[in-house]
């Protein structure tokens, strides 16, 4: 009996010393969740998903997810439509600019959901979501960013997910970088 207890104690100590790593399935679940959110982002005018969500866990740093999207499905150039008029370009730019705040809100929600899903990511590590935004050559990008990167510590995101912190706490916890 004593031997058994001793063996279990040694095994526990050894297991306690190993770093927990999120499995590929866990990462894939977050990817799927992100994809679903993108699909449901706007049912009538869905975003153009050009790069499916992909995630990696970086040991000691956290989980990083990326996707490439265009907030709006834009018409393409073709032999039947060799060029876009100035009015069309301005209209598309305005529509995208109106869509950008909603994209940022969606990314925040993705961060919170990913933190709640990835149990094996340590709380002191980070969850990162980066969106690469696609623009056609003929588009007027103006001040709109090419990439949006949001990162936050998992512990802060879990606080928000548990309802203990509001959007204000989330804004404080998240670092946003747009370029």
């Amino acid at each position, binding site marked *: 009996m004593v031997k058994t207890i001793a063996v279990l104690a040694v095994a526990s100590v050894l297991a306690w010393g190993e770093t927990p790593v999120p499995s590929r399935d866990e990462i*894939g679940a977050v*990817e*799927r969740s992100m*994809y*679903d959110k993108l*699909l449901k982002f706007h049912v009538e005018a869905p975003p*153009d*998903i*050009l*790069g*499916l969500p992909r995630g990696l866990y970086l040991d000691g740093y956290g989980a990083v997810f990326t996707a490439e999207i265009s907030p709006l499905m834009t018409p*393409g*150039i*073709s*032999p039947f439509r*060799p*060029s876009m008029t100035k009015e069309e370009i301005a209209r598309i730019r305005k529509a995208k600019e109106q869509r950008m705040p909603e994209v940022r809100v969606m990314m925040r929600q993705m961060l919170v959901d990913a933190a709640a899903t990835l149990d094996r990511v340590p709380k002191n590590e980070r969850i990162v979501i980066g969106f690469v935004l*696609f623009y*056609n*050559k*003929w588009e007027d990008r103006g001040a709109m960013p090419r990439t949006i990167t949001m990162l936050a510590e998992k512990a802060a995101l879990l606080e928000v997910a548990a309802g203990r912190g509001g959007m204000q706490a989330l804004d404080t916890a998240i670092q946003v970088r747009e370029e």
Partner: protein
Amino acid sequence: MSCESFDWKAYALGETAGAEGARHEAHLKECAGCREEMSGLKVTVTALKRLPKMEPPRRIAFVSDPVAEPGWWARLWASGPRLGFASAAMLSVAILGHGVMSRTGAGNDGVEARVAQEVARRLPAAVGQVVNQQVAAELAPVMTELRGRLDGLERGNLAKVRGELDERRKEDMQEIRGAFELMERRMNTRYLSAARFGGN
């Protein structure tokens, strides 16, 4: 008093005198017709008076003289068949003239028809040829001028325009290529999402 009772010829020749002459003169003042007749007679008398006076011939031939006898042609002409011969001749001339005139008229109609047909056949080609020649003559200097201008454009601006068009065409091709690449990426994303997420 009627005009027939006056002898104007005698009056014109000066053969009436005295009361008769006065009566003629009085009537002339009243009758315009007689004045006109008298005027004509005076012209005749005046003309006769202007003729030169000639001596009468010393010898007068008589009808019985051989000199006065008609010749053989005159006798033939004055003979009995003269009337018949003249009638036959006139009839022949009439028949001949009718024949000639009829044939000439028919010939004219045929010729006119042929001429009209030939004119209709040849006229368009002839007119077209003339018009073409005139148009070519009128257009020749204009075409020369235009050709010169085009040559100038060819040498000067056309190369520049061609360069711009080539550049524009390349840009269009790049845009079209980008559009196709975008479409390809969309399709790839659909395939990948179907494979990874079960077709959602």
